[in-house]
Structure formats: C-alpha cells, structure tokens
C-alpha cells in the first residue's frame, strides 16, 4: 500500500494538469475576482455622498425637498446626499459637467427629477424622491380631508369648511408639517437585528464558491486516475489491470493522494486569500473540515464518472466539467441570486448540492456562527462521498471491457 501511495503521490504532483487546475486555478481565480471587485469589495457598505442640485423655484417645495434630502443619513451617519441650491442654468451646467448626479426641479408643488444617466447613484436619487412624493401625497390627502371636513388645529383656531381659503389651507398644511416636524424624533422604535454575527459582504459568496469549485474540480484528476484503471482503455490501463495488486488498493491509494493534494491546494488558497485581504473566518480547523469534506466529494464524483464503462476519457472529462459547472452555477459562482431562488422554490437542492453546502458552510461559520448547520453540511458531504465511492468501487471491481479501446 505504501508503494502505491508513494508513486500515486509522485505521479499526481508531477502531472502538469493537476498542478495547474489544483494549485494555480483557485489562486488565479480568487486574485482575478479580488482585482475585479476592486474597492467595491472593501467599501461595500460605505458610499460617498451623492451630489444633488435643487433648482430654485417654489420656495416651500424647494425647502421641503432640501430638508428631505439633507435629512437622509447612512448607517455611519454620513449623508446620502450633498445638496446644492442652484439656479436653473447653473443646475443644468452642473449636471452636464458631472458635478451633480441629479437635478430636482421645484417649479411647482410637485418636484421632478432630471438625471443624465442610469447608474446606481441616479437610481438612488430617483428612489429617494419617489419616497418623498409618497410622503407628500400622504400630507396632501390629509389636507384634502381638511378641506372637506375642516380642522381644529391644536392652537384652537378652528376653521370650518365653508370658511376655508387657499391661504388658510396653506397655513393649515404648514401647521401640519410643523407638527410632524415637532413629532420627529431620533428615537428608534424598532432595533435592526440580524441573524448574522459576523460581517456580511455579498462578494464573499464568490470566494466561498471558488473553494466549492476548487473542491469539485478535483473530480477531473480523479476521472483521469480512474480511467487509467479501466480495462481496455489504454495500454497503461491494461498493464495495471493485469498486475498482482487489487484494484481496490490502487483506487484507494490514488484517492488518498488526490485528497491530500487537493486539500493542501485549497488550504493554500485559503491562506492566500486571507493574505490579500479577503474576509474569511480565522477558524482554520473548521475551514479544514469543509475543504476536506468538499475535496472528498469532488474526488469520489470523479472516480464514479471515471468508472463509467464504454466512455472515452474525453467524454468523461466533459461530464465532469459539465457537472462541476452546473453545481457551481447553482451555488452562485457565476451570478448571484440563483441560490436564493432555489432556497425559496426547491430548498432540497441547496441541502444536497455540494457546492452550495461548501459555500454555505463557510458562511455558516463566518457570518452566522452556526456550528450545528456547519456539521450538518459536513456530514451530508461525507455521506454522499462515501456512497458515491462505494458505487464507483463496485463498478470498477466488476469492470472488464467488452471491447478493447487500446490498440495492442
């Protein structure tokens, strides 16, 4: 067994494909993603204030909009918007020069928004002004009710409907706004609570999925090693099949070495990612557990695919790549939202999808500190790996070629 292990190790580490896909790929991919996300990765929750021009117009509207925009604050206390009150021409020029992201016109009682593009800053201004208009409509509805039914303001200067004039209406509206303003308080009636106990960064999902993909790509090496043990495939497989060592021993040796190599490569990628500043858990034992279980699954999947009789190695590698890509896609490596959508519609897939289990395990220990869920994921991966390996070894042990694919 030691003999088989020794040479399985040498052939594995000296294989260029293994080296590239196992060691270089996760590091290259994580570096590429880290560079692509750039500052967004680090500054995701803190945004620069958006410059907005409020046009000079109806004074009440102008002041109302200005107060509304200036009152909007980010979680760290910074304002969402920096408001400048400008003339119509100056505002237009500022927008064209890119000095402001939007203009809010205040020529009537209802403000409008002018933007010069559709990136996220403009979207934020439009969203904010929509909120403003909803707020204003509420006030207008109350005012209309006043017109219809009259109102007794708190000062006691009641106005009957038949005595209502536009001036009095404006006074009433101002009085209502003043009351609302008086009633405004910084007191939080609801505290924002999150299940998350650690920092959340949506971009981390990509890095978790990178680990998942790295573990699953181990299946390609396993396809190759298993194919070598299939009778009738190549002269080398022929020689290995007639040798005096059991196939089970050879498969287990190769799997063990592959597991060790993939695990080492994934741990290396983990340390590398932390080194370049990606936020990952510092619970190394837990990470090792995930990666070991994930790599076990990837390798067992490869052994099973490699054991499919009557298929060439190219077809088997194609199946391996296809399955890996599909599973990675379902776990959000390619785009966000798929995993959430699956969670809402068919959660069972996320419970058994290996890539989802691997990335979820990372999130579980880093963000939620939920070790029950972590161990459930781990056990699921290991059980699936054991079942798949058992099936693969059963197929391998019974395999004899119907047709020789090798030329002898």
């Amino acid at each position, binding site marked *: 067994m030691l*003999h088989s292990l020794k040479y399985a190790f040498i*052939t594995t580490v000296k294989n260029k494909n293994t080296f590239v896909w196992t060691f270089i790929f996760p590091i290259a991919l994580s570096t590429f993603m880290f560079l692509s996300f750039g500052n967004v990765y680090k500054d995701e929750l803190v945004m620069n204030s958006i410059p907005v021009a409020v046009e000079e117009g109806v004074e009440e509207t102008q002041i109302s909009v200005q107060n509304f925009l200036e009152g909007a604050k980010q979680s760290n206390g910074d304002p969402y918007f920096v408001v400048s009150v400008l003339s119509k021409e100056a505002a237009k020029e500022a927008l064209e020069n890119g000095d402001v992201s939007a203009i809010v016109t205040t020529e009537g009682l209802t403000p409008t928004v002018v933007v010069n593009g559709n990136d996220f800053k403009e979207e934020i201004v439009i969203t904010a002004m929509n909120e403003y208009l909803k707020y204003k409509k509420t006030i207008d509805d109350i005012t209309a009710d006043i017109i219809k039914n009259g109102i007794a303001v708190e000062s006691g200067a009641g106005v009957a409907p038949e005595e209502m004039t536009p001036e009095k209406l404006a006074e009433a509206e101002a009085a209502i706004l003043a009351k609302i303003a008086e009633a405004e308080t910084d007191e939080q009636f609801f505290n924002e609570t999150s299940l998350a106990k650690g920092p959340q960064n949506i971009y981390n999902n990509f890095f978790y999925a990178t680990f998942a993909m790295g573990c699953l790509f181990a299946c390609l090496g396993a396809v190759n090693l298993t194919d070598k043990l299939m009778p009738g495939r*190549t002269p080398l497989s*022929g020689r290995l*099949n*007639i040798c*005096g060592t059991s196939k089970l021993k050879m498969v287990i040796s190769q799997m063990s070495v592959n597991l060790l190599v993939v695990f080492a490569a994934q741990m290396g990628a983990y340390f590398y990612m932390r080194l370049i500043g990606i936020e990952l858990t510092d619970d190394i034992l837990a990470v090792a557990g995930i990666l070991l279980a994930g790599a076990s699954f990837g390798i067992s999947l490869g052994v099973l695919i490699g054991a499919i009789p009557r298929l060439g190695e190219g077809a088997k590698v194609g199946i391996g790549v296809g399955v890996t890509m599909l599973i990675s896609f379902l776990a959000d490596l390619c785009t966000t939202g798929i995993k959430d959508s699956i969670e809402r519609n068919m959660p069972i897939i996320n419970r058994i999808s290996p890539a989802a289990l691997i990335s979820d395990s990372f999130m579980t220990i880093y963000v939620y500190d939920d070790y029950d869920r972590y161990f459930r994921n781990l056990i699921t991966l290991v059980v699936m790996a054991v079942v798949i390996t058992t099936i693969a070894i059963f197929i391998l042990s019974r395999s*004899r070629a119907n047709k*020789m694919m090798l030329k002898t």
Partner: protein
Amino acid sequence: MEYAVEVDKLVKRYKELVALDHFDMTIREGEIFGLLGPNGSGKTTTVNCILSLLKYDKGEIRVFGREMKPSDYELKKQIGVVFQEVAVFDELTVRENVDYFCGLYVSDKATRKQYVEDAIRFVGLENYEKFVPGKLSGGLLRRLNIACGIAHKPKLIFFDEPTVAVDPQSRNNILEGIMKLRDMGATIVYTSHYMEEVEQICDRILIMDKGRAVATGTAEELKNMTKNRETITLETDSLGEEDLKVLRELPHAYDLKYEGGLLSISYSAGRNNLVRVVNYLQEKDIAFTNVHSKVPTLNDVFLEITGKELRD
C-alpha cells in the same frame, strides 16, 4: 505435459462480428509460443481474453491449470505483459517506472530492488535510469516497456507485437532478450504478423485466421503441411522439349514451368533437387544463370491453407 495456458472453445463476438470462433490453444511451459496471423485474425483478442482484460462469450481459459479470473491476483503475479504500445508513466523516471510496476507484484523491498536492477540491466538501460520517458528514443522506450513487463520475473510473459515500428538493431535486441527469457525458464507467448520473427524465435507456432486456429506446430511441422517443399528457379535460353521432359521427371518434381527463359520446378520432397538440376544442365552443356532454391515460408503455409497471403 504441463501447460502454461489452455484455451478451450473460446468464443468472442463484437456484435455481429465473431472475433474468436471456438478457438482452441495449448501452450506448454518453457516454450516460446508464436501466435501468427494477419491483422484482425484475433491474436490480440485472444491475449486480452487470457489476461481477463476482455469479456468473452463462451469457452474456458486456464493458466497454470487454474481458471483465469480478474480477481485471481496470485495467478496474475505469475504473468507479465509487454504491449505493442508503450505503457509507462510519463511522470516517472526509468527506474521509478520499473520499480513501480515491479512493486505491484513484489512487496519485499530488498527483493524488489534486486529485481529492478536485474530488469534494467537485462534491457540495457543502466545509463538511462534517471531519464523520464519523454527523453528516451523510440528504441529505448521499447526497452523500458519490456523492463516494466518482466521486472517481477513472471513465469508467463505475453509479448504483443513488441517489434512493430522498431529499428532493426532494437528488434534484434528484443528478439534475443525474449529467447534469453525462455532460457531462464519463462514461458513466452509471442504475437506477431512478422512471420520471419516468429519462425526465428518460436518453438511452436499457431496460425490464426478469422478467429480460428488453422494450424499448430513447429515451423518445420507447419511447412510439412504444404505440398511444396522446394522450388528451384533459374534463367536459361537453351532448353528444348526433350530437356524439359527430363527435368519434369526428376525425383519429387511435381510441377515445371518454362516461360520467357525462366525455369521454375516445384518439388514435394528431397534434399538434392538443386544438385540434380545443375548436374543435368552441365552434362548437356546448357548455359544458365541466377539459380535460386526457395524452401517454403510460413506465408506459403498460410497461403496454401487459407488461400490468401499472411500480410493481406
């Protein structure tokens, strides 16, 4: 008589094609047994069935008296294979390759070390031990391929067309090596479509065609199966009808052709046929040139039995 391999009524079909059709074969211990046949005759299928690499439909295969099964590793330890294509690991050096394959049969470290050195010396790769296969020439690669197949000192070795695409010098080395292995006690099964090689090294030969054994025996025994034992040809312009009559009536002559100055006489037996022809021509003072005496080859045997050339 101890048999190394016994194949009894073996049938192997590839869908409609019958690759082996109730094929029978026995190989004696200690002999070089040649499997000779044209491409597609079933040689490789036979070997792969014996090695349990290939499923077969009917029949029995016994190796050293035991039924050959894929899981009989003790039996497999007594078998070595040298495929036509090189079957080694590109990532390992010459020594590592030989050591790896030897280690799949021999667990004792000291014995294995000795075996590996013996094998490397046997094929003459002492100076290339640290080379990886990619750095070896075609001939050296073949030698490595052989070393990997025989390092564990098997009692039964299959050589499947080991000299295809090999230069003449390497081919001679390989053939000499095979005979040396036989002399050391191994039983060799040698498949080839090169009749000269088979005739040169094999103790017994089985001729295959269309998945059947058409003839078995030593090279001489096979040749004795043909009517023709010798053909004499010579060039002369001076033969008359009387001369041809005399030549046709020489002992063992059964066919005579004389066209365009080329005389050809076929004999069914005899050792002094050429002397008799030459003596007659000298007596009659008939000038002649370009004299050839051709004894039958295995190709002639194959041609006579199957009606087609071995290399068709």
